[in-house]
């Protein structure tokens, strides 16, 4: 018998008994919903973590040399923490030493961060991230300047008190006023605004536009770090291999400069976007490892429910089976009919599950800052699982139906 006829017949049966069908489908439905939703959300998180989190905080093809890691996703023991605090600070001399000796083509920026209140014309923007750095900082961070300009290497060399501000700072202090050329006061010193950075959006719901950047030679440096000390030394290469090579060089140079013996651990940290993601990768690996188990449980339960429903259907339709056999249906025709019916039932459940899963993923996207990326492969897996579960659950009832004696079947009420 043609597959299409069998499927149409199965859909007809499902539609005729909507409520019963719904209950029989719920196991498969939940299983597939779960699959789609979890995969979408975790993948969305992955995309988010890679694109937004790491690359925005660290930068593309970039690594940072720091006293201790600044992006920590796992737990840190007290002991490790104390070791971090005992490490020597990075100095201007370290930065000069490295920049003179790295052979790989790279750009650098020294950087310190702190928080400060910015005021203009009586308005105050409190607790703004104040970064002191170099002209290369904007390139490393991939900041687009929406109006004005970044400060220049000359201004950094001369220690000119100029300021590039984030979009939110511009909005707070300069409502309906062009911020360019205006003087902002930080810690009692005036700074001239030369540029505004294009809107960066949010990360985990926190605005990335509440910052101001000034040359590390300007008076603002005193507000965020001690003299001669730098918090971060950013190194950006043009490619990933270049970055890895530069990282090797920096590690070797720092170890020899600090006189570390081969068995001594590094007393500095090298941080990359990749490295910052390690903690998250662990979490997502665990989620993906647990997923098949959770989905399997729902699908096994769903399969058993469908098998029961199919056994009931065979019992209810014994006479129909007898009629079909009398009209010339062979065993395999009856077998195929019930297997296809069961597979169709289960696939319909999977389809609803996919719909619901995508719905859940979009709900998460609407309610949280995470994007939900629905993975096409998870939809394919959902459909295949639906068909497979249905067929597996249908085989036993179908084979019972196919083995019915036509005379007994015709006689049944």
């Amino acid at each position: 018998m043609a597959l299409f006829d069998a499927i149409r017949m199965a859909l007809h049966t499902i539609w005729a008994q909507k409520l019963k069908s719904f209950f029989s489908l719920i196991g498969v439905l939940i299983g597939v919903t779960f699959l789609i939703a979890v995969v979408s959300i975790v993948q969305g998180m992955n995309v988010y973590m890679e694109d937004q989190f790491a690359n925005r905080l660290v930068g593309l093809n970039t690594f940072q040399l720091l006293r201790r890691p600044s992006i920590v996703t796992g737990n840190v023991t007290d002991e490790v923490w104390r070791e971090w605090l005992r490490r020597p600070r990075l100095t201007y001399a370290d930065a000069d030493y490295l920049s003179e000796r790295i052979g790989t083509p790279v750009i650098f920026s020294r950087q310190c961060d702190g928080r400060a209140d910015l005021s203009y014309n009586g308005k105050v923007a409190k607790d703004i991230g104040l970064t002191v750095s170099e002209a290369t900082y904007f390139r490393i961070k991939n900041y687009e300047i929406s109006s004005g300009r970044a400060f220049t290497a000359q201004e950094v060399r001369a220690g000119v008190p100029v300021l590039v501000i984030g979009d939110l700072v511009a909005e707070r202090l300069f409502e309906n006023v062009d911020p360019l050329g205006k003087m902002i006061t930080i810690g009692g010193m005036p700074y001239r605004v030369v540029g505004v950075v294009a809107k960066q959006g949010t990360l985990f719901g926190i605005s990335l536009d509440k910052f101001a950047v000034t040359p590390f030679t300007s008076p603002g440096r005193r507000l965020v770090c001690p003299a001669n000390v730098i918090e971060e030394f950013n190194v950006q290469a043009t490619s990933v291999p270049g970055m890895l090579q530069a990282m090797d060089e920096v590690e070797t140079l720092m170890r020899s400069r600090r006189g570390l013996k081969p068995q001594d651990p590094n007393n500095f940290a090298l941080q990359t976007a990749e490295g910052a993601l390690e903690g998250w990768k662990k979490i997502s690996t665990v989620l993906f490892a647990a997923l098949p188990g959770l989905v399997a449980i729902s699908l096994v339960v769903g399969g058993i429910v469908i098998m029961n429903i199919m056994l009931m259907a065979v019992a209810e339709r014994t006479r129909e089976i007898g009629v079909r056999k009398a009209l010339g249906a062979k065993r395999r025709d009856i077998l195929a009919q019930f297997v296809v019916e069961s597979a169709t039932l289960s696939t319909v459940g999977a389809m609803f599950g996919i719909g619901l899963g995508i719905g859940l993923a979009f709900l998460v996207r609407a309610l949280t800052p995470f994007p939900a990326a629905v993975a096409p492969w998870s939809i394919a897996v959902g459909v295949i699982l639906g068909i497979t579960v249905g067929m597996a659950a249908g085989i036993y009832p179908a084979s019972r139906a196919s083995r019915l004696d036509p005379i007994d079947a015709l006689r049944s009420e």
Partner: protein
Amino acid sequence: MTDAVIQLRDITRHYTMGSELVRALEGVSVVIRRNEYSAIMGPSGSGKSTLMNLIGCLDTPTSGEYWLNGQEVSRMSDDALARVRNKEIGFVFQTFNLLPRATALQNVELPLVYGGMPTRERRDRARQALDRVGLGNRMDHRPNELSGGQRQRVAIARALVNQPSILLADEPTGNLDSTTSEEIMRVFALLHDEGQTVIMVTHEPDIAEHAARVITLRDGEVETDTIRQSAA
């Protein structure tokens, strides 16, 4: 006899019911020729249902030979029997046995579906069969939208659609009032006139009267076998 459709030679059929051996048929030999119109009669327990199941290839005999249209079907496998039922036998049941969720047309198509006929062709054939029983205007109705007589006519169309060697009817009027019964008997007579071999199992003498030949069974054996000249 070259024009014999059915040759039953010394057929026995025994089965056990609980611990008891039931001898449903004990040495039945019957020959039915092409275009014969026969009725099988007998009280309950006479073995007429067992005989009908054997003739309809739903069952195989314990011993004896059954030749249907030149093939020995008494030793066939289940699937081979299914094929024979599909091609050679057209069943009409007392309770119509239409699929309730399928339309008249879909019901009539069913034997052709199992015969593996392509969709377009089988739809045409099913339409013709419904036209033949006068239900050309009821094709898309479901069984519950049809009267008893109409349902039985759909069943007859379904039985005939594969142009079977025999039309095998089991109490075809058992669930119908007398007017409708007569209507169905007229359809049978018409089919017989057109050359169809008809075998009907009944316990109603006035229905059996429509047939040209009446075979009565008693205790698993043929009691009488009479052929009338001016029947139907």
